């Protein structure tokens, strides 16, 4: 059994959930992974109370970034914008449930960054954990 490319990750990669566009979205944001140029575009529709009613995303990416965003978008219904902005990175890393190396951290967290940026209406202030050169064990292990 492959650890990184386990069944669940490949399933989400090959058949991502919530994949597509929302024409009547209230929030949307698009960003790229500067490491590889991969793009994702996230659309969020809010209900009357300002909570997430529907989420969709589209873009090109690797198995990790696609699976991470696919899993993330499954979990956002009912959250307020403030809750989206406060979502910790561990939220996504726990969903993935695999060890993410420093170089793949940007892939794993791209979708979360875009969700936060969409909620803020501008680019989220972001310092990726597990950056190359970071020796602290906590950030290296990711999960």
């Amino acid at each position, binding site marked *: 059994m*492959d650890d*990184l*490319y386990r069944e669940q990750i*490949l399933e989400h990669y*090959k058949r991502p959930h919530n994949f597509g566009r929302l024409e009547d979205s209230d929030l949307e944001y698009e960003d790229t992974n500067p*490491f*590889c*140029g*991969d*793009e994702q575009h996230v659309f969020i529709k809010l209900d009357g109370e300002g909570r997430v009613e529907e989420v969709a995303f589209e873009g*090109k*990416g*690797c*198995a*990790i970034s696609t699976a991470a965003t696919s899993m993330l978008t499954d979990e956002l219904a009912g959250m307020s914008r403030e809750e989206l902005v406060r979502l910790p990175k561990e939220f996504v890393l726990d969903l993935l449930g695999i060890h993410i190396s420093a170089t*793949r951290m940007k*892939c794993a967290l791209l979708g979360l960054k875009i969700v936060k940026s969409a909620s803020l209406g501008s680019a989220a202030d972001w310092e990726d954990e597990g950056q190359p050169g970071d020796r602290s064990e906590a950030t290296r292990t990711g999960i």
Partner: protein
Amino acid sequence: MEATAVTPGATSTPATPPRVEEVRSQFPILAREQNGHRLAYLDNGATSQKPLAVIDALDRYWRQQNANVHRGVYRLSEEATDLYEHARRVLAARLGADRREVVFVRNATEALNLVAYSWGRQNVGAGDRILLTEMEHHSNIVPWYQLAVEKGAEIDWAPIDDDGRLDLEAFARLVERGPKIVGVAHVSNVLGTINPIRRIVRMAHDAGAVVVVDGAQAGPKLPLDMAAIGADFYALTSHKMYGPTGIGALYGRRELLDAMPPFIGGGSMIRSVRRDEITWADLPAKFEGGTPPIGEAIGYAAAVEWLDAIGLDAAHAHEAEITSYALERLADIPDLRVFGPPAGEDRAGILSFELQGVHSHDVAEILDRHAVCVRAGHHCAQVLMDRLGVAATTRASFAVYNTREEVDRLVDALNDVRRVFRLD
């Protein structure tokens, strides 16, 4: 210290080329093991590994010869200066150029920026045209884009054909628009295409354009005879030529360099500085402001001499053999598409490919488990990626020390990617 005499244009070719095992034994890093596999280093387009000759030259310099250059009158400084200027002569000999036409820079990127900033600002104005090719690396795009925005100039893009060769008919039409400068890669870092550089230079010159060649990938592979190529500017980087990082060279025709303003202002690049008047140093010092990377320049020259001792012809023949073997083996892998020309004289050992349904980062990640090092991503060539209709590719690129066995391991590892992603 006596500098060895160097004859311009002379490259020695040994009677019998060394066997690949002998070459490999000169690269300590190739003995490294990862996950129980010996390292198969196939990312030479990004940077090559370094032979002992280079490692030793660097070690010797830092341990025994370090001093600043062109300053001290003490013996140590004179020795460092002599070594640094000898390194320039070694480069000049390889290029068949005058030593004053060889400017040390940090890398090919800096060389190209120097041309765009210094020559470009002086010679390109509003409405002028700049002709680039679709296969350029970002380092031969971004400086020209910045210049075009600043000056109000226009960039034209010479297209490639479906085999990844420059479309020379289209190029001829674009050159008729009278660009001020033509920027072209000698060898594409993605497609492995070896451009017909003499012909391109002649066409550009006939139209009155100045030509700047990005030689980053050609450096370790091809003869660099500036007179034969005819380019006005030629950019090189050491670390892809078996030398250290942090050093590269810009060749520029002397009358052009003479007429250009300096690039980086500071120490070393001036003749005199008064409160109201500054005069520039002679070539090449005019373009080398600040303390240069001295040890790195010495290491660069050691790399050039090392490759000359191997013999460029032998290195080229070895790479061509590995490349055609790799193209043959990759063609047998289902769902895999190789970009660039078929094996032949205009095909270098740089192989980009796409495995349908698997992102290049995932390919590279799985290859790494087999200790096969390749590059994944857009290769700083996003204009080309758009033309190819892909976001990224996986790239294997060969050097003098690579073997058929390593190609076999690449193929086995790619079949493992197919297994993991259940492509069967």
